[in-house]
């Protein structure tokens, strides 16, 4: 056999092939998977990858949205349109319902957030729908403890992640076995960076919620970050709302997701801005990760996304 030279595979093509492989492998080996959908860019990319993985067939599992009730309205509108147009099934786990049922207690005060409460709602939804695998859009470049997490991450009966007991992942031979009560979190875009995600969105011409593009919004400044004014957040003394041109780099709760000043109104402009930035997306826009040095690690151990 002779080796013939083929053009080098682009990094996006290689990452796409790897992600589709992971999605198909989990769908084949697990009985009841679901795709965790936040309406953010990473989960939108996951949906596109799932569509590609099963074409010409349908995506064989539902989306699961953990709804904090503190959403950007643009994101919920986008979610409903995507589900309808793409013939997807949507399950919703409601944090408000968890509060009403007494499963969790709402935080109070001007810095109250429902971010941490989501974990209970998520685990309840996993139990209610008897899910044994959840696809997530987490990436290893997002945060330090993520760099150590496997593509297929085993969660015990309590949804906990144990970094010391991870299965080695060799070649592309994934071990997707779980015992009753356990489930997997599968991260098909583990090896992507934020810039890869944006380049892929541009390449695939994916639609995004409008808040990812620069727009005029009423905001106020807190701890060096810009937050949108909303019913979900109480202004503290000295915090004055003003209008600015901003866009979002990540999509989470209105109460803990910061905006960045930007005039990038189109996808190519946003990609150019991301390529030139010198701050990580979580450092720039997420209050939830700033709380303690090991904030994400702690939440992941408890069963967070």
């Amino acid at each position: 056999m002779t080796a013939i030279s083929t053009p080098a595979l682009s990094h996006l093509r290689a990452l796409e092939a790897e992600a589709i492989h992971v999605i198909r492998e989990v769908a084949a080996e697990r009985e009841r998977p679901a795709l965790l959908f936040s309406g953010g860019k990473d989960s939108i990319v996951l949906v596109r990858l799932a569509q590609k993985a099963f074409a010409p067939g349908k995506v064989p599992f539902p989306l699961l949205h953990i709804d904090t009730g503190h959403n950007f309205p643009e994101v919920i509108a986008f979610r409903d349109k995507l589900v309808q147009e793409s013939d997807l099934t949507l399950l919703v786990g409601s944090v408000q319902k968890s509060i009403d049922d007494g499963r969790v207690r709402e935080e109070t005060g001007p810095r109250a957030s429902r971010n941490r409460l989501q974990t209970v709602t998520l685990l309840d939804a996993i139990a209610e729908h008897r899910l044994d695998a959840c696809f997530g859009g987490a990436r290893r470049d997002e945060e330090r403890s993520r760099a150590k997490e496997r593509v297929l991450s085993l969660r015990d009966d309590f949804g906990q992640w144990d970094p010391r007991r991870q299965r080695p992942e060799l070649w592309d031979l994934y071990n997707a076995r779980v015992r009753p009560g356990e489930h997997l979190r599968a991260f098909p875009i583990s090896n992507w960076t934020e810039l890869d995600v944006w380049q892929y969105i541009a390449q695939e011409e994916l639609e995004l919620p409008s808040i990812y593009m620069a727009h005029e919004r009423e905001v106020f400044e807190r701890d060096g970050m810009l937050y949108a004014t909303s019913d979900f957040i109480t202004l503290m003394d000295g915090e004055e709302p003003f209008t600015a041109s901003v866009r979002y780099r990540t999509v989470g709760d209105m109460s803990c997701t910061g905006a960045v000043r930007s005039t990038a109104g189109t996808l190519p402009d946003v990609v150019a801005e991301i390529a030139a930035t010198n701050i990580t997306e979580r450092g720039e826009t997420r209050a939830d990760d700033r709380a303690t040095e090991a904030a994400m690690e702690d939440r992941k151990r408890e069963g967070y996304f």
Partner: protein
Amino acid sequence: MDLLRLATAGSVDDGKSTLIGRLLYDSKAVLADQLAHVEERSVDGLDLALLTDGLRAEREQGITIDVAYRSFATPRRRFILADCPGHAQYTRNMVTGASTADLALLLVDARQGLTEQSRRHAAIAALLEVEHVIVAVNKMDLVGYAEDVFDGIVRDVIELGAAIGLHKTDFIPISALKGDNVVERSAQMPWYDGPPLLERLETVPVEPPAVHGARLPVQLVLRGEGGTRWAAGRLAAGSLKAGDEVVVLPSGTRTRVAEVRDADGLAEVVDAPLSVSVRLEDEVDLARGELIAAADDAPSPTRELTATVCWLGDRPARPGDRFQLKHGTRSVPAKLDSVDGRIDFESLEWPGAEELRLNDIAHVKIRLGGEIAADAYARCHATGAFILVDESSLDTVAAGMVS
């Protein structure tokens, strides 16, 4: 821009974290807020090694627990780096990292020379047939940038490489701490006329595996319009197009390819390593776990394997123990038949052994409860590799390569 996957390995204290920190820092993969975090915790100057510590237990104990994966890019190339700690369980970690690597970057401390751990890392890179190896001789600043120290280590590695079958190997004298020959050429070592490390990483050719007959492990069967059936999977080798004669293994059914799809829909031809789906001409029975292979170049199904395994499980294994073997997309019951020799990293000989313990690498025979169609690992990694899963813990306990 293409993608290079590399694995780094080194002994404790040889400066690997500092080197990776420097690569990330100098390629601007480290952003201001991450840097601020490191500055806060650096005791003396900017401690780049702090960029790579991940988990709280690691920070508390000052060690690295597990393989960490990091991405960075230069204008020329996108990199995924598997950082394999040299501390505990180094064989297990190195095997894991090396299994997906195009290139192994082995660090050697110029003052220590080849330690037992470096020999082990080199042997693993050889056993896993990592295509390219770079030996970075670090801490050259601490040996006065002396050429003869570097040359001595090069000679030792070449001698070792000849014994273990190491692939293409480059040698670069560096100081990760001072930055010599990492991104910029060092002014301290005019006797070295090769490229600095980053330039070498950017220009190493990433070649697709030598082309041979197509191999498509079937992940699942998709239904298309009009009830058409599509075998979906990641093409492990070769290419497929309409009209190609193929055989479905292990059943041995022969047919032709009718249509192929890649991630964007119908295609003329699909190549490894893309995720694809194919429709076959006859309505042959297809299921997950089967292998679609080029009819004129197909592996023979077998129930017996001779293989090299790396033991990753905490519990020792003995002949007679049973496991589940996963090869491609096929899982079959497997029984460890015999342990024929376990490598001694000092002598590089394979003396006989009674059992397999964590971090052992051994030649074994395995009997299977169902047929698999495997290639020799040397011929095709994707269809020559397997894992063993313990039936009670469900842990992945071994990585295997078919001889």
